[in-house]
């Protein structure tokens, strides 16, 4: 095969994904920026250009700042916790123990469970009066309708759902570390923790970097667990309402797509900045051999 036909063949192979990405991800993202400068009527069939009016309204809206704070707070709790726990379980499941695949399946199960179904189970677990969590802890906490606890409930559900997949990514990273390095370390007399600290962790940093970027972007877009667990008549909603939840409310419930578009465009900028920062700082801690 000459190099030209190899290129053509390669593009043919990625075409379905590329087309899907452009049509269903890139184009809506660009269109949402356009929408945020309009005032639409009649379900978007009549549009007026209003410039930055939607953004002006947004930055004066106290609710927006609170939603932004909630979103960042969730991200700050969720990302490190998921990373640490996923790494922990990945290291455990990288060992040679009996029933290894069974454990891997168990930890991966949340990933293949329908979020809506899982949320229903969590609602029951979190219930104040008859919930299993309060029963086991001996507490009487309204986990999902008390503003003090609702955020932690969301983080618990989020981390529970995220460990499986991220553990898998990290496991793949772990298995890419050459066995010879550990053997050399053993000859030098390194113990378990030192092997983890000086071999595993440094060689895992590319995977951890990738995982943290993806996790962060995902975390700032939290919506479904708020929608399913908290719900719109919940008194704790203002304490956990995220930007994407506010977007959904504005765009699809109050029929103000333009204001909603402004909200997600701000989120887009935030994510670009945060990801940019992560890439800028990766030199400090990520090892590519």
């Amino acid at each position: 095969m000459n190099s030209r036909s190899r290129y053509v063949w390669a593009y043919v192979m990625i075409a379905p994904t590329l087309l899907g990405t452009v049509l269903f991800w890139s184009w809506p993202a660009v269109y949402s920026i356009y929408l945020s400068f309009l005032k639409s009527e009649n379900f978007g069939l009549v549009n007026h250009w209003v410039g930055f009016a939607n953004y002006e309204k947004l930055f004066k809206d106290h609710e927006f700042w609170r939603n932004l704070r909630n979103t960042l707070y969730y991200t700050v709790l969720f990302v490190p916790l998921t990373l640490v726990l996923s790494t922990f379980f990945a290291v455990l499941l990288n060992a040679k123990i009996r029933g290894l695949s069974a454990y891997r399946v168990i930890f991966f199960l949340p990933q293949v469970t329908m979020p809506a179904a899982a949320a229903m189970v969590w609602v029951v677990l979190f219930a104040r009066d008859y919930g299993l969590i309060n029963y086991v802890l001996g507490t009487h906490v309204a986990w999902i309708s008390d503003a003090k606890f609702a955020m932690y409930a969301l983080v618990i559900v989020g981390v529970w759902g995220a460990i499986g997949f991220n553990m898998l990514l990290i496991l793949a990273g772990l298995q890419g570390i050459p066995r010879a390095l550990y053997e050399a370390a053993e000859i030098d007399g390194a113990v378990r923790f030192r092997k983890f600290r000086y071999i595993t962790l440094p060689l895992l940093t590319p995977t951890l970097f990738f995982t943290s970027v993806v996790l962060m972007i995902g975390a700032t877009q939290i919506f479904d667990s708020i929608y399913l667990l908290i719900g719109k008549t919940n008194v704790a909603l203002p304490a956990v309402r995220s930007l994407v939840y506010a977007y959904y409310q504005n765009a699809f419930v109050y029929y103000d797509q333009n204001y909603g578009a402004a909200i997600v465009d701000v989120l887009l900028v935030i994510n670009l900045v945060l990801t940019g920062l992560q890439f800028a700082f990766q030199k400090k801690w990520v090892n590519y051999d």
Partner: protein
Amino acid sequence: MVIRKKTWVSAMSLTVVAAMALAGCGSNDSNNGSSASASGSTGASASSSASAGKASDAPKKDVTLTYAIWDQLQQPAMEAIAKEFTAQNPNIKVNVEVIPWDQYWTKMSAAAPAGTLPDVFWMHSGQFVKYASGNFLEPITDKVQAGEIDMNNYAANLGSIYVFNGQNYAIPKDFDTIGLAYNKEMFDQAGIPYPDDTWDYAKLAQVAKQLSQPDKGIYGFAAKMDTQGGYWNDMLANGGYIVSEDGTKSGYDDPASIEALKARYQMILDKSSPSHQQMTDTDSTEMFKSGKIAMIFEGDWRTTDIDGSDIIKGKWNWAKLPKGKVKRGDIINGLGNVMSASGKHKDEAWQFLKFLGSQKAAEITAQMGAAIPAYKDTQAAWVQSKPDLNLQVFIDQAADATPYPAGSKAYPVWFPKESEIMAQAWGGNISIEEGAKQVAAMMNQAIADNK
């Protein structure tokens, strides 16, 4: 090692592909399956039973219509009507599609500009103006004038709800009012007579207190944060209002409205009702169904649902709402069937729409206990559909009930925001008065923005 990694990756991708394939197949299968079996059975029975006149008609093109509804409890009745219609019109199949209320209008608002609204679908008075003013609904005025359908056939002037700029858009489907459901067993045990016509709100609060045993998780009343099935009735009974008659002003900050809201909330403070948080965790009607609550306001449409609970079946009944300072407040609402202006099969859709407005469809609705049919003089069959329950209260209360306060472009804007603000008041973060005033300000703003 390399091989293991590959195995994992391929296992993962297999899982994803399989999941997608399963999801895709699943939905396709069910669609094909149901329409295929429907055409098989009804086609056969229809051709054998069709009248001679029908059979002589030229063969018509097979058409499948979509009929979207939001109430799963009414699905069996709607499917029975669709089946009856197909029996009379063998070339037209109808797919009844249930979209839950929470997503129904989200989906419709996306479908409207895309031109993909269902051929025929349920319309709510609150959403009607938005769709009619956008020309997304097919006007049926000429059909009404041509005498194809007679709007006088429908009770309580229900047809007038769905008139916009002098055009008719909907055929009334049903109406609904609110009643007081009570648990007979709990009244018997306490030796208290059942609620009746003489009850007022003071009596309700007093009995609710007597029947409550908060330490056992049993309450006399569910003072839920709810509009149509909740405090709107209280506000009206107390002489307050929801929206002024000319539609220009919110009634939430009216002193009589605030007093009514406070009185309802007081029942939570008195521990005559579960707290808002408890009712967020568990729907209050579900609590009533499991015998934890003695009395609750609910719409007639929940009858089948409540009666389906084994715990409470045979041990409950309906009464009229209590009287307030001024009158007996009750919200009446009527659903309409409408057809899309951009449907591909408008002639067939009209045939089906007309059938939905027929006496036959009303009788099926009534007999199956799905809803109070709008068609005149078919309500008795609905009342008889559950003889052990006093369903007559819903018909009696319709006479002097207040129409659901919709019918404006502002309604879809303020209605969802209302519950978010009131949740803060009901949850104790702000006072009831503060919540009511915030709602009033928000509603007045929405009315001003959506003239």
